[in-house]
């Protein structure tokens, strides 16, 4: 029998993107023993790819901005599906979180008076996004990374967590393997924070990195945690469409925030027909649908996108405000964006749904298990506004750190993960090596991406989703025969074989929720139910494991108190 390397912490944080780092920093500040485990090198997590900015109602550029306005924008953008309390806490606490980053060394772009500069973004009625050119995510992750190093948080890099371990009803640890040598590690913890991000790798065209394999969602689901709002997958309107090697790569919304115009092959600014008031700065769901429609109706660009144009802006200013975009197009597509329009189309970008959490504490429905960032559901409702993700990470990362630390103090008596659970988990991990023949993990993944892209993508219809569910079941069966060759040392085929288990479960959750919601709302568009229905506004979908199957139920959405509801009446 294999012996295991073991580590014990009060609080274990899984994932070292913005939410995980912020949570670890906070838990450490609370005086408990924290460990941070991440499957990539430190500082490479998906947060690094965020570009346009972090939304916080500081009012540096538009003094009329305040948390109420930000709250209203967020709820309206989310088509009222958001957990109102999360949206409120987020709007209230975001400014403080951004200012805190500055105290830890972050360097945001400035206004002439020396305060943090804020830019316009889709769905935000004020100039609200603090930014660093178009590489805001890098600035944030580097700042948090350096702060975590300063706080001497132990970091387990390139260590993939595969199973959450439980004793009784409480989570008490996790099984992981080192990518470098494939050896298993057992973590024991009094509380665990999941900060593992989203699901993008289920889809063919995505702006997400390989890490987005829904690990946290899958592991918590396996333990019986509830997933909500899984039908709401954000398709960012502007990804690169050409050349094929970069299809899906993000083109920041800041391009439109800085004045970029969307046109079709007739040269029309087509947003006039979809949202004449907000034009290019409409919400992402609307712009993505508009682009889809333009292409579908034959008004697209040569490579199946539309044009995004900044050539009317001053070239030097474009290079300064959007340096990454300038280089991205120049280096990868031979396009000089100061002289030629970009070609763009929708790309899978963000999971609005996720683990059901308590707004105040980020606690999931499993005792001792907390979740923050993209892995948590509710904050963004049916459609996330740009810039609200970076602020979400900071606000709820911090809250997770506070409350997971508190939980660990109140449950001082740690529980040791039962051996039988560990043995069962490791057996499951190693089975694919034993098979003499079987499916290739790469093939299964390839087919999964086609299924989700083509059948549960930006425009959905009952028949397609049902076909997808049948195909997903088939892929699940094939996964049972998946075969891995080579050794356990840095073996990407093995890593993918494990990722697929989570990807398939969350893909099924997306498909089931999408099939059940018979309306179009936010990012969820049903061609066979094109209208928004007031009845559906009151309903949240809940996905939970039920034996070997998946159960979908409905839960009434929490209603906001009258003083907040009043904010929306006033605006009419």
């Amino acid at each position: 029998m294999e012996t295991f390397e073991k580590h014990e912490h009060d609080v274990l944080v899984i994932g070292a993107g913005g939410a995980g780092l912020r949570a670890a920093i906070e838990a450490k500040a609370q005086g408990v023993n924290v460990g941070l485990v991440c499957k990539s090198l430190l500082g490479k997590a998906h947060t690094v790819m965020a570009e346009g900015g972090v939304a916080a109602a500081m009012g540096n550029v538009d003094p009329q901005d305040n948390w109420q306005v930000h709250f209203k924008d967020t709820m309206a953008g989310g088509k009222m599906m958001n957990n109102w309390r999360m949206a409120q806490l987020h709007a209230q606490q975001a400014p403080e979180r951004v200012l805190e980053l500055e105290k830890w060394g972050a360097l945001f772009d400035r206004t002439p008076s020396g305060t943090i500069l804020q830019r316009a973004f889709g769905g935000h009625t004020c100039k609200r996004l603090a930014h660093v050119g178009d590489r805001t995510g890098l600035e944030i992750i580097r700042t948090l990374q350096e702060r975590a190093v300063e706080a001497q948080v132990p970091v387990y890099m390139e260590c993939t967590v595969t199973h959450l371990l439980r004793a009784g009803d409480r989570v008490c640890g996790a099984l992981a393997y080192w990518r470098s040598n494939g050896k298993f590690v057992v973590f024991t913890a009094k509380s665990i924070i999941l900060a593992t991000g989203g699901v993008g790798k289920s889809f063919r065209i995505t702006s997400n990195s390989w890490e987005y394999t829904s690990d946290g969602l899958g592991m918590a689901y396996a333990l019986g945690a509830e997933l909500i709002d899984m039908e709401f997958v954000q398709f960012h309107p502007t990804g690169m469409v050409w050349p094929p090697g970069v299809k899906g790569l993000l083109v920041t919304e800041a391009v439109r925030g800085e004045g970029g115009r969307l046109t079709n092959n007739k040269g029309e600014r087509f947003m006039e027909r979809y949202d004449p008031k907000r034009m290019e700065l409409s919400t992402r769901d609307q712009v993505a649908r508009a682009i889809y429609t333009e292409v579908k109706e034959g008004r697209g660009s040569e490579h199946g996108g539309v044009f995004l144009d900044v050539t009317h802006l001053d070239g030097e200013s474009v290079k300064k405000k959007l340096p990454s975009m300038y280089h991205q197009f120049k280096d990868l597509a031979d396009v000089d964006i100061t002289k030629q329009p970009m070609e763009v189309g929708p790309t899978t970008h963000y999971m609005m749904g996720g683990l059901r959490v308590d707004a105040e504490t980020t606690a999931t429905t499993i005792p001792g298990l907390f979740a923050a960032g993209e892995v948590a559901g509710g904050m963004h409702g049916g459609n996330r506004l740009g810039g609200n993700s970076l602020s979400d990470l900071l606000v709820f990362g911090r809250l997770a750190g506070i409350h997971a630390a508190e939980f660990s103090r109140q449950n001082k008596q740690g529980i040791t993960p039962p051996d039988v659970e560990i043995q069962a988990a490791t057996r499951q991990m190693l089975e694919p090596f034993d098979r003499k023949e079987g499916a290739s993990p790469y093939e299964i993944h390839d087919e999964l991406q086609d299924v989700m892209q083509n059948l549960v993508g930006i425009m959905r219809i009952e028949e397609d989703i049902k076909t997808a569910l049948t195909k997903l079941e088939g892929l699940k069966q094939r996964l049972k025969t998946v075969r891995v060759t080579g050794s356990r040392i840095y073996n990407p085929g093995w890593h993918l074989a494990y990722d697929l288990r989570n990807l398939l479960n969350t893909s099924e959750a997306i498909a089931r929720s999408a099939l059940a919601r018979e309306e179009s709302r936010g990012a969820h568009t049903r061609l066979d139910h094109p209208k928004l229905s007031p009845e559906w506004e009151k309903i949240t979908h809940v996905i939970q494991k039920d034996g070997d199957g998946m159960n979908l139920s409905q839960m009434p959405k929490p209603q906001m108190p009258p003083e907040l509801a009043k904010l929306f009446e006033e605006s009419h």
Partner: protein
Amino acid sequence: MPDVTFRISTGSAEQNEEKTYRVPVAEGWVVLDAVHYIQAHEAPDLAVRWNCKAAKCGSCSAEVNGKPKLMCKTRLDDFADGEEIVVYPLKTFPRIKDLVTDVSWNYEVAKKIKPFTPAKDTKWSMDQRDMDRVQEFRKCIECFLCQDVCHVLRNHDKKPEFAGPRSFVRIANLEMHPLDTASRLDFLKNEGGLGYCNITKCCTEVCPEDIHITDNAIIPLKERLVDEYYDPIAKLFKVFSGK
């Protein structure tokens, strides 16, 4: 497009060999696309480190036809027709497997650098002109190509005594932060080994973020070091003033 021949260095630090693959490539492909193709079709356990495939995370550093590059940014159509593409892991760091090296040393060095230290009563107001200078250093994606190419590390393996260009960029960022109050000159002189750098600018040449590492980070730090420790007039002043 015609197939392209790839020769990829595979194996461990002790035992490794080049393996040859023919890859049918598509328009706009980069080296990393080809490596992924080889994984999916021929060598499922071929190890490569990557994350974003968008030149933002700095994970997929390797040596392509002898040059330190990000695989996600190295386009296949930049090579001549029929040219073989040879991919090796970074030479300066110990190989784990295939194209993946152990770069953890860089993270250990980072722990030794004194963090950002603002004054207690700091007014958080900064001018964009000050930002422009420092933000250049903040662009670093920690790909460690500069560390890989630097001869002090690559050929002389001065790892214990020399912190390398990445660390100097980080220190320049902190030293030139308008609101920082700490000094890292002592570290640069003693532990960091800044004096080993003889400004050959190799680091600047390979930086995928176009940071002027030598001109804007290393040389100004060297000047500060000279002012602090070797300026004869300042030394005299110190002797007479007793400071």
